[in-house]
């Protein structure tokens, strides 16, 4: 990553809200550029100031949070301007990396938390940049929904200490550092994928998986890619390149224990 952002405020309410954006993984690579964004209470509103320049003004801490959420996302896109961004969780076990690909609400975070308890290291739960030099997860805390609490053992206790945000639909979403959930470390590295697993929600059912062809995998991953029209040809090329070295699977995501066993089997199949 090219920059590390520090959010600074003396306002207690703003500080509590900004904890939802807190994220401090170890990232392999050269030291990042430091960037400070201050959130300053001013009269009845907040001023968001970046490197001494006024970025935005917002009336409430919630709108400050939403505004910064979008701003940080845009900054991360600027780090990899031509790279497709795939909806995927990225995990490692030893030297192997597995991507869980699926849309929002497809079960990536919940499965990632289950895998974390099985000894996997979670790099990210939502976005992975595909660059010519390899894949790299976008640094962001895990976004855990309340609905995951009954599924992952021990999670309710962990969430009780985590910062949260209520989305426009009234759902509470938690910001979780993998280390809070028992991971010994949180490290993000650039590299290839050994297995790419497409998630098909089968809530309430059993989990099962099957291998799929690389052509199907490219097609499905492209469908979960955010790219600009200008970069489409390059995006196809880098996605095809990383898929070419990975095994592809389709996982019908039902019971969590079965899903973990399927991911383990998928990785075992590589040896």
């Amino acid at each position, binding site marked *: 990553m090219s920059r590390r952002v520090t959010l600074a405020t003396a306002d207690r309410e703003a500080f509590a809200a900004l904890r939802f954006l807190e994220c401090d993984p170890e990232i392999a690579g050269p030291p990042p550029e430091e960037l400070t964004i201050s959130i300053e209470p001013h009269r009845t509103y907040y001023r968001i100031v970046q490197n001494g320049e006024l970025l935005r003004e917002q009336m409430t801490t919630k709108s400050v949070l939403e505004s910064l959420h979008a701003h940080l996302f845009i900054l991360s896109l600027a780090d990899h301007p031509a790279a497709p961004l795939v909806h995927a969780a990225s995990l490692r076990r030893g030297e192997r990396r597995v991507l869980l690909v699926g849309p929002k609400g497809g079960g990536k975070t919940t499965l990632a938390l289950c895998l974390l308890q099985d000894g996997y290291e979670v790099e990210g739960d939502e976005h992975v940049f595909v660059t010519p030099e390899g894949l790299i997860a976008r640094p962001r805390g895990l976004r855990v929904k309340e609905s995951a609490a009954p599924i992952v053992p021990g999670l309710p206790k962990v969430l009780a200490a985590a910062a949260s945000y209520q989305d426009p639909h009234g759902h509470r979403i938690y910001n979780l550092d993998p280390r809070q959930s028992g991971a010994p470390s949180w490290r993000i590295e650039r590299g290839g994928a050994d297995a790419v697993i497409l998630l098909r929600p089968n809530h309430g059912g059993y989990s099962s998986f099957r291998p799929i062809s*690389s052509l199907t995998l*490219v097609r499905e991953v492209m469908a979960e890619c955010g790219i600009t029209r200008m970069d*489409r*040809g390059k995006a196809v*090329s880098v996605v095809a390149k990383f898929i070419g070295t990975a095994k592809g699977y389709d996982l019908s995501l039902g019971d969590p224990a079965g899903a973990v066993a399927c991911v383990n089997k998928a990785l075992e199949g590589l040896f």
Partner: protein
Amino acid sequence: MTELLMRVDGLEVNEVPDGYVIYETARDRVHYLNKTAAIIFELCDGSRDAADIVARVKLLFDLESSADAEIRGAIDSLLSEGLVLSHSN
């Protein structure tokens, strides 16, 4: 006169283990070719007509004459998708 088949210009061809993923710049389209279609696509090098390509694919995969229509169908798909064009010799 023979109708020779050749790949069109402006295609970005990416090889994956099961075939080709081709990006067509002019129409901003992505095409997915399985292994057989990829071989047919490669044979469209401007020096062969459809009958020659059918014969070569049959030989390569040790196919019966009954496969002719299927191979011709694949050639027609490449033509209709704009990945290959024919020109008179």
